[in-house]
């Protein structure tokens, strides 16, 4: 006869850690900021915010203002270009394309384009093409955070899998993976990134993620390997082995939850690092293509603008990035404190 037992678990290590994180004012604050950014990224991805970042809405280099008046617009007449193009002297020749031109002119006449009105100032200012810096920084935040997140996932995944295998199995597997790790870390970082970029031969968010993910797993690997080395001879793992648990089960079911705090902290450290790397790469021209915008590409544009005294794109981007990266770093520190099993009492 079997009896059903309720499976409501009592508090485990994770919820304890979360509670500790919440008790820490710095942890609570930084968690709030990071969550706010992630919500923002989600809204941009859904198309609710920043979708019109590529539209010229103001005159070029419209300065930022905090009090826009009603007279804050300039209207440029529409259709001007068509009229002017028709008065090219042809010196007696007939334009062979004249039938097509007249057809096109007739079509244009039917459309009756509205005159375009541009803003003279914007809250965050505008760039060289008259695009709203506020919209751009929203879209840029989404690109940069997204690249960082996905690349950090990729790097953490590769590092964890390889580190677990090297640390648990040791011997030949360890030698092989350690050698690979040694070669990879002996190459200067930027050189390695350029080499991978050269292999991929195309710009894009996907390429950027692959570059960062494939080069950035080494830190995770080193730490996870050390943890597995330590844990594989722990008594609970030996006991599981004696009970008939396979190697795979010991690696992934028994040890992994016990080293997950290390992995999580590494993940958030990588996230900070990758966001900064993305900025550097985009700044150096290896980053996102012109069809997209990120913090790095905005800073790249800003260096030319700054010579002209147009400081606002630089200012807005720097502030947005600094807040996020600082909050993330603080959160990483707080997480490490909260998850440290030595503090468990």
């Amino acid at each position, binding site marked *: *006869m079997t009896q059903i*037992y309720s499976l409501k678990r009592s508090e485990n*290590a994770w919820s304890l850690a979360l509670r500790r994180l919440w*008790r820490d004012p710095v942890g609570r604050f930084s968690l709030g900021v990071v969550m706010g950014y992630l919500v923002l990224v989600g809204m941009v991805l859904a198309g609710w915010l920043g979708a019109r970042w590529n539209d010229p809405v103001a005159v070029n280099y419209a300065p930022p203002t905090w009090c826009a008046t009603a007279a804050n617009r300039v209207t440029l007449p529409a259709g001007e270009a068509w009229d002017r193009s028709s008065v090219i002297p042809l010196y007696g020749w007939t334009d062979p394309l004249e039938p097509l031109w007249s057809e096109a002119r007739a079509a244009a006449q039917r459309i009756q384009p509205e005159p375009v009105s541009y803003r003279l100032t914007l809250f965050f200012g505008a760039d060289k093409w008259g695009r709203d810096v506020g919209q751009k920084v929203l879209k840029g935040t989404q690109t940069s955070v997204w690249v960082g997140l996905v690349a950090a996932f990729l790097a953490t995944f590769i590092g964890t899998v390889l580190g677990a295998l090297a640390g648990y199995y040791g011997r030949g597997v360890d030698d092989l993976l350690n050698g690979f790790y040694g070669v990879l870390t002996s190459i200067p970082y930027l050189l390695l990134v350029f080499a991978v970029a050269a292999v991929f031969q195309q710009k894009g968010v996907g390429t950027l993620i692959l570059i960062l993910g494939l080069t950035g797993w080494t830190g995770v690997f080193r730490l996870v390997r050390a943890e597995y080395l330590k844990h594989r001879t722990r008594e*609970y793992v*030996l*006991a599981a*082995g004696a*009970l*008939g648990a396979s190697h795979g089960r010991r690696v992934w079911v028994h040890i992994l939850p016990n080293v997950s705090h290390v992995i999580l902290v590494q993940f958030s450290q990588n996230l900070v690092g990758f966001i900064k790397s993305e900025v550097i790469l985009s700044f150096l021209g290896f980053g996102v293509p012109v069809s997209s915008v990120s913090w790095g590409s905005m800073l790249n544009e800003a260096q030319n603008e700054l010579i002209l005294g147009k400081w606002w794109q630089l200012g807005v981007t720097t502030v947005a990035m600094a807040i996020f990266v600082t909050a993330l770093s603080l959160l990483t520190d707080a997480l490490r404190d909260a998850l440290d099993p030595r503090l468990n009492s």
Partner: protein
Amino acid sequence: MKPSPLLEVRDLEVAFRQAGEMPLVAVRGVDFTVPPCATVALVGESGSGKSVTALSILRLLPESQAHIHERSRILWEGRNLLEFSPQAMRTLRRRSLGMIFQDPQGALNPVFTIGMQLGESVRRAEGMGSARQVRRRSLELLAQVGIANPETRLSAYPHQLSGGQQQRVMIAMAISTHPQLLIADEPTTALDVTVQRQIMTLLRELQRELSMAILFITHDLALVGEIADEVVVMRQGRVVEQGRCSEVLVTPRHDYTRALLTCRPTLGNLPERLPVIDDQGNLMPARDSSSPRSPDPLSVALEVEGVSKSFVVQGSGWRRARFQALEPLGFVLQTGRTLGVVGESGSGKSTLARMVAGILAPDTGRIHFPGAEVTGRSGRATQVQMVFQNPFASLNPRFTIAQLLTEPLMLQGLGSHADERLALAVRWLERVGLNERALNRYPHEFSGGQRQRIAIARCLTVNPRVLICDESVSALDVSVQAQVLNLLRDLQDELDLSLLFISHDLAVVRFMADEILVLYAGQVVERGKAEDVYARPRHPYTQQLLKAIPQGIPLSSQGAE
């Protein structure tokens, strides 16, 4: 006429602050005195507050966390230590107090030589400047604590010394200051029993020579009888009994003291079951076992033939040296019987256990379970299981008790579905004295004894024929140890389990085992029926081991129990 006391502790109360929780009162209202040149023993189990008491005398508790109550007083020759300035306290520690700790390896700095560390404390104690003077005094101290070749030892690093020698160095450092009071916090707990005997003898001699008082902190009442004049028994931060050693140990008034004396098996006292202490500290008499062991026709559960093991250690240069952990040995374990394996650290007893459990592969020989086809790791699991020493390490902290107990069932394909496995798990939990409320909790919510019982239940879920207990009760307090030993005996009778019981504690092995195997440096030096080996040890090593067991309690008092 009583001499005025050297140290007087009056109404000591220490509380620890905890973030977001009520302060934890570790010591409440402790009173005792230490007369000059006397030995006072503080005895108690883990959590009794004995170490906290010692640290508050030295004022070494972290002040940010520990709070000593205002009305508490610690009088050193009549003056209150708690009101000393840090400067005055340092002087007192340097001139009049010495301390030795449980773990000498942790207390010595691994990157400095013995000479440098000893020289530093000599220089501070005597204010001596010249290197030659310091060296001469260091050599004198090392000779005094019985270290052979003190000249060569001065330039040795801590890891080059054995545990006993390290503890001797620690004692040399402590007495370099000519202390009036030596505080010894479990100084022999981490040491083998023969080494423990040497250190105890040394402490006694030094006390006579240097006429100092000793505050001896231990969990082992038998050891107390060897050294102490007075004894203070502590439990949960309170003093339950104190008095002259001879009185307290022979005619204990308090139940708890009596329990500490009787819960631990001794060589002269071998009941079927041990008495235990309940949660209130009351002594529960031993339950009579209904049926004596049945002398049924014996079948063999485990056969070990010519098994040996060596490990690769770092040799010099490129060469790799091999260390023979276990010379070829063999034995037979009969169904329902217990084979005790005795040996000190490094004797190869854990290597043997791990090979039988299938965690290590033997270099040579064969481990055979007659009457069963054992193929692979999974097959072996149903034949033999192992209970580890440290219940804090052998249960996965991220698993609930339900997961811990149903996992082996799942791995072995026992029970057809999850609910059935859970029901089986509950049955085993109840069998080891817990109930289903434990299912959804995590190991850290249980005490050491409960965890060890969960570990035993986990091993038994797969119905093994042989259970290996590798120092399974060594990390437990005396009272909890008795519960687990009783449980193992009950289970053995009920399930016809064969036990391979490994321990450094000869009295515990004597209580459990039918036959004994004595290991020394990887070799079997003696084997035979337990009563024969203990009554007439033939090998000198066995004789030495048996002599080293603390016999502090007069045998007459054991007879009275």
